[in-house]
């Protein structure tokens, strides 16, 4: 039993409120990623689960037991830190064995568990090394090994890959995924990198200013963001937004002088300003005059496999279209932009999304 439940969890430092009542249920064996911009409270929330920050209000429940006032070591958790936090004066074996030794565990048991963890992570030949003799990736592996050795009910990861270079990050990401498949333990992972969130998570929790914006599977968040913040945060490059006027039942819109576009969402009201959202990869390029809008290419960024075309579309600023690497468009060319209706999102003045009439095929 290693479910984790947060009930109306709050945190404030004096007058400053940091976490404003978070409710969340994490199932046994689930991989949940907290993601959000810096300062959104995701690390604070993780540290509250770990017991490193006190809880101002609400309950943290692990495996059916309220743990608000239980010391970190007795919560059945293990944590991996961004800076690895290895003990520099102990070798790899000493680092991994430290918690168990401290708990008065039997020597043979410690030896056995450290060997097993070292096998999983490929650290067998490094056990006698000091942290300063290891590379960044090896250090992070030791930090993860130290967590595995404790055989926790819940793993907590606090931006574990942020200190690694890009290539290593991809490799470690895969290793963490395999680790989760192998151990089938509940994992809570904090990151500001939405690619990590998308690739690792069973479910993503998007946080902003100490509040949950949306909880869902990666594809739910991608295809059906509930508000403009989530829509802009998930996906890279970010979703394009265009101010639009409404007509008809409130779901037919015009933007930038386009012909009326019917967005397939459930009507809610008919008045008030709205924002149209579409992801760069969903815009289709057509001949001038044949699409919904005509626009002039500002800059073409060629990455080889794909090309990003930037347009200047009035008040909402940069509008990006992702197209294939063979695109011949030059800066200054005029092209037509066509918006497939099923890829459009509509947000009201508060940024809340209109519910789509049909869910995406990949999402149950």
């Amino acid at each position, binding site marked *: 039993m290693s479910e984790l439940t947060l009930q109306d969890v709050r945190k404030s430092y004096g007058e400053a409120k940091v976490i404003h009542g978070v409710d969340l249920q994490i199932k046994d064996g689930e991989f949940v990623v907290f993601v959000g911009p810096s300062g959104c409270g995701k690390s604070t929330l993780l540290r509250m689960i770990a017991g490193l920050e006190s809880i101002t209000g609400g309950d943290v429940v692990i495996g059916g037991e309220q743990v608000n006032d239980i010391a970190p*070591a007795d919560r059945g958790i293990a944590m991996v830190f961004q*800076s690895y936090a290895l003990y520099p004066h102990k070798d790899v074996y000493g680092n991994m064995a430290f*918690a168990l030794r401290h708990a008065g565990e039997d020597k043979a048991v410690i030896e056995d568990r450290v060997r097993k963890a070292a096998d999983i992570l490929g650290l067998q030949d490094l056990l006698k090394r000091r942290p300063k003799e290891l590379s960044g990736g090896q250090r992070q592996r030791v930090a993860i090994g130290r967590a595995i050795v404790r055989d926790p009910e819940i793993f907590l990861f606090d931006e574990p890959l942020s200190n690694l270079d890009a290539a290593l990050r991809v490799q470690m990401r895969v290793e963490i995924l395999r680790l989760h498949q192998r151990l089938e333990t509940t994992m809570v992972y904090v990151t500001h990198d939405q690619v990590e969130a998308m690739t690792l998570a069973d479910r993503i929790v998007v946080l902003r200013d100490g509040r949950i914006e949306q909880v869902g599977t990666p594809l739910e968040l991608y295809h059906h963001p509930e508000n403009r913040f989530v829509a802009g945060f998930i996906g890279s490059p970010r979703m394009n937004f265009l101010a639009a006027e409404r007509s008809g039942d409130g779901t037919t819109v015009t933007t930038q002088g386009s012909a009326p576009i019917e967005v397939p969402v459930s009507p809610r009201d008919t008045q008030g300003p709205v924002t149209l959202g579409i992801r760069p990869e969903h815009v289709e390029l057509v001949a001038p005059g044949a699409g919904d809008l005509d626009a002039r290419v500002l800059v073409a960024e060629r990455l080889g496999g794909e090309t990003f075309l930037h347009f200047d579309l009035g008040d909402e600023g940069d509008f990006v279209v992702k197209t294939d690497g063979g695109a011949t468009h030059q800066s200054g060319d005029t092209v037509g932009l066509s918006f497939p209706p099923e890829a459009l999102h509509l947000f009201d003045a508060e940024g809340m999304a209109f519910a789509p009439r049909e869910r995406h095929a990949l999402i149950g």
Partner: protein
Amino acid sequence: MTDTASSNRARASRAKGVSTRVAVHGVLAGYTLIAIFPVVLVILNSFKNRRGIFTDPLGLPGEGTFSLEGYATVLTQGDFATYFSNSLIVTVTALFLILLLGAMAAHALAEYRFRFNTLLGIYLILGIMVPIRLGTVAILELMVDLNLVNTLLALILVYTAQGLPVAVFILTEFMRTLSRDIKDCARVDGLSEYRIFFEVVVPLIRPVLATVAVFSMIPIWNDLWFPLILASGDATKTVTLGVQQFIGQYTVNWSAVLASLSIAILPVLGLYALFSRQLIAGITSGAVKG
């Protein structure tokens, strides 16, 4: 044409490199000479007789001037073994207390958030600006009331108080730079706050502890003021005070003074060597990221 030009340039820059290096080493050598000269002079003259010291103070001890009479006097007259052990006991105990209490205070100031944290920090550091000797009279009265006059404990307490402000200041600044993660990690591993301090924090700050130790050690070892006032009894004399018996009102036994000073350098040199090994170890380990 270009070849000669570039080789000329290379030669010029090489010459410049050599001259810079010569200049740097010249300055360093000059400084070393100035710093070491008095010490060498003391040691040289400690091996001469009285006449040798006065007729040729800068000369090497040779025929007619070489003499061990200074050392003989020091070792036979007075109780220098006791003075030495007094100095060592006072210095080592005070150092231990300064490092222990200073590190604990610094850890608390750097690690925990509590009311008056900053105020307490300023209060602890204030001692840097106020020389402890200003309080000599009050300290003497206090020691008399506590019946601590002519005990080594009196000196140990005063020196601990004297050394703490700088120690707290340096250690707090350094402890603020320690990663918070590693302490949190120890908390998750189940260590008590005391064990976090002793098993995680202290090993990490060892090089800084050595620095503070060296800084605090010299003034304590060399101090004459407080031994003279608080512990001038024969059983509690320190080396610097013991040397004074050779300095009379009318005659000074220079051979003995210089001999005892030469001997007094040795223990402090030993302690310094001990700490500086740590210093260098600290510098090299800090050079590696993480």
